[in-house]
């Protein structure tokens, strides 16, 4: 069973529709009590404000459950603000986060060198389709040199972004893909079976659907990943 966490904000309908179209059993959970015991993967979609999302996750009792899930390295896919809360801290609202992957969420406005961004052409939010550059696999085992998350997805494929804050990890091994917008930032982060995408795969056409399918297919098993 795939469980989609609903913390009360944002558009979970689209993620639900994608997973239904891929024919996986899926449930939207509104409270930590509703997470079924046969849950194999958790999807954490988020929009809006990172601090607000953390506050809602706390109030609805999701945090202890998620922290245990993360401790067990169980499959978890955070999307957009859901990826941002996987880090240690977010500048948006200045909040501590789930700390699944060491790093922090930073502001484009504060960090893009605006003397290079002429005439307000680097707009905020970063909104639209941008290229996702897959990092070389960090596997020591040379027999497998492609991260299964990218199985069948060409390098530099475009995905749909809409955000004003970006992911920044401490250990570069946790950056699975990068994107350029005024500066280079991590567009996909990952540690074990815990993955975060800054873009919205559920709004990124066929390649986004494939990425979600790859996560659900390859991240539930026992094999070590990128």
């Amino acid at each position: 069973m795939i469980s989609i966490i609903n913390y009360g904000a944002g558009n979970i309908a689209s993620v639900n529709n994608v997973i239904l179209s891929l024919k996986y059993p899926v449930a939207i959970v509104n409270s930590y009590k509703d997470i079924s015991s046969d849950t194999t993967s958790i999807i954490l979609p988020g929009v809006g404000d990172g601090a607000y999302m953390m506050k809602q996750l706390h109030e609805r009792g999701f945090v202890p459950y998620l922290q245990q899930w993360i401790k067990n390295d169980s499959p978890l896919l955070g999307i957009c603000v859901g990826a941002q809360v996987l880090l240690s801290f977010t500048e948006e609202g200045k909040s501590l986060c789930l700390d699944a992957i060491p790093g922090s969420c930073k502001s484009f406005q504060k960090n893009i060198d605006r003397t290079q961004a002429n005439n307000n052409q680097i707009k905020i939010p970063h909104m639209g389709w941008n290229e996702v550059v897959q990092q070389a696999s960090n596997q020591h085992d040379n027999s497998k040199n492609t991260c299964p998350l990218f199985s069948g997805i060409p390098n530099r494929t475009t995905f749909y972004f809409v955000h004003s804050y970006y992911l920044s990890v401490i250990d570069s091994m946790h950056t699975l893909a990068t994107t350029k917008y005024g500066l280079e930032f991590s567009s996909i982060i990952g540690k074990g079976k815990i993955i975060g995408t800054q873009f919205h795969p559920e709004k990124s056409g066929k390649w986004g659907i494939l990425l979600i399918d790859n996560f659900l297919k390859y991240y539930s098993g026992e094999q070590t990943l990128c």
Partner: protein
Amino acid sequence: MLKKRIIVCLDVRDGKVTKGIKFKNNKIIGNPVELAIEYYRQGVDELVFYDITASIEQRNIMIDIVREVANNIFIPFSVGGGIKNVEDINRLLLNGAEKISLNSFAVQNPDIIDRGVKQFGSQCIVLGMDVLADIRMPSGYRVLIKGGQETTNLDALSWAKEAVDRGVGEIVINSIDADGTQQGYDCVITHKISHEVLVPVVASGGGGKPEHLVQVLQKGGAQAVLIASMVHYGTYTLQEIKQFLSNNGIEVRLDY
């Protein structure tokens, strides 16, 4: 780098897609869900649905359309037209819309912007504005509302800046003079506003040939364009348009 976006606009009246010229003489084009699926397959980057239905009873048809579209396409789409309160916004977003567009009601009650942004986030709230060239205004352009039928005392540039201060995440500038004429976008007002605001700006009204898109995306400083007549009448396919843009040095999404 970030690609420029090509967005197809679908005006919906009584559950059917129609197209007019300067907001008059609407002709029926087809079924909104079928058209959405077709444009999605053709590689459109986003869609916008404007509910131009006159009566309130027919508004519920829009929610059904939104739900059906969200079940079938997996790219962002926005909805606008007659949105007056936070409940309207919530229903549309819950049913699968990515963004909602505020226009006439926001001019008369601007705090709907603040409330929408506070509850749902800037990325969901788009300002739609209809503008008419008017030399009496400081920017040279006046804001009109109610489908261009009612005039206001608002200057286009100051209204855009105020809306951004209140938190809108994107601005769609529709030129009433150009709308449906297929003679090109108004690059002047598009550039004026894009130069002054930090949020993405979408040009709307007048797209007739791919050259027009090149102009407004380069000289006009727009991050995206709305097209309607060009594709609804079958004059161009999205592939032709995108290929033309790419050949003219404009980065667009081609990997759909």
